[in-house]
């Protein structure tokens, strides 16, 4: 026991020594490296997106993002699968929280539309200001989480979530293929007009892809939250009742 602690502390000490050298000798570059400089110089004429991070995520590194969304989908599917195979002991099924009070319930009913609106704003302005599909999806999932907290019985159906998830995933692939057909390659967003730099509807297909990613990520997070919230047993209980 204690020898193990000492061993771990020693190993981590070695790692810390390596980190120390990395950090102490670190000197920031004076200028951007060539890749970043290229991205900064060509944001306006290639993607039309003032937010370079969104431009990189959706256009220049779009394939990585597609892969990442797939990984997230696999995660949510595996979480649901892992939890579906085990049942709660008799009499212990049901939510882990006590029922909410009236004030929280009313507050949730008032806040949910606002959170959804803010999520839509974050998604739609992803190419102009901080935000984009991933952030907006997280905000939307936070709305779902608030609904679960205030009214544990208030759930969006798993079937609906799965449908939103698969339709937006399919749409993402189709937009990518449209880039292959009408522009220079897979996931090239320039097949739609770039529009006026800095306007809401501009930057080619970037807002469209943002919306699809936002819906997909939001649905995946919501699936994870609901799987952890209910599990299989409580749903069966409802069916029986």
């Amino acid at each position, binding site marked *: 026991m204690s020898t193990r602690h000492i061993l*771990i502390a020693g190993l981590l000490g070695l790692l810390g020594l390596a980190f120390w050298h990395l950090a102490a000798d670190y000197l920031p570059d004076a200028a951007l490296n060539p890749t970043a400089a290229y991205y900064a110089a060509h944001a306006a004429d290639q993607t039309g997106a003032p937010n370079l991070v969104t431009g990189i995520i959706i256009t220049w590194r779009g394939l990585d993002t597609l892969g990442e969304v797939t990984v997230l989908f696999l995660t949510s599917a595996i979480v649901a699968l*892992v939890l579906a195979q*085990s049942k709660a002991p008799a009499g212990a099924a049901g939510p882990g929280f006590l029922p909410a009070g009236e004030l929280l319930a009313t507050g949730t009913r008032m806040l949910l539309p606002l959170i959804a609106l803010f999520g839509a704003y974050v998604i739609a302005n992803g190419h102009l200001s901080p935000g984009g599909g991933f952030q907006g999806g*997280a905000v939307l999932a936070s709305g779902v989480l608030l609904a679960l907290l205030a009214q544990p019985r208030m759930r969006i159906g798993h079937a609906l979530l799965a449908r939103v998830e698969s339709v937006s995933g399919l749409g993402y692939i189709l937009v990518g293929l449209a880039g292959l057909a009408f522009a220079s390659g897979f996931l090239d967003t320039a097949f739609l007009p770039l529009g006026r730099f800095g306007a809401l509807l501009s930057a080619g297909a970037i807002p469209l892809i943002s919306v699809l990613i936002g819906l997909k990520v939001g649905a995946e997070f919501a699936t994870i939250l609901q799987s952890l919230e209910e599990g299989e047993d409580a749903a069966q209980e409802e069916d029986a009742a």
Partner: protein
Amino acid sequence: MIALALFTGFALILLGLYGALTNRDLIRMIVAFTIADTGVNVVLVAVGYLPGRTAPILDAAVPVAEAAARVIDPVPQALVLTAIVIGLGVTALMLAYAWRLFRARGSLDISDFTELKW
């Protein structure tokens, strides 16, 4: 400021790893893991920062022509952005397995799972 952020990030990684390796409680191991995760993100963002420059978003404050001379490296930010999202997925997966183990064995203490002992 970069050095400060780097040291904080590295310290968070070490603290998180130490906690994940020495705790016996599954939930607290996962908590320590998320702390290490945050530390990695801090280090990556700090490496992308250049002193005296501003966020890689072009608007009235940063015209397009000056962009390459005024903004910081956007590539690590794009990387970290996706890393955070995946990090949540990984945490959810670990918690799902922890819960499954709890239902199978009625305990969250790893010393009760003898076949995993090292």
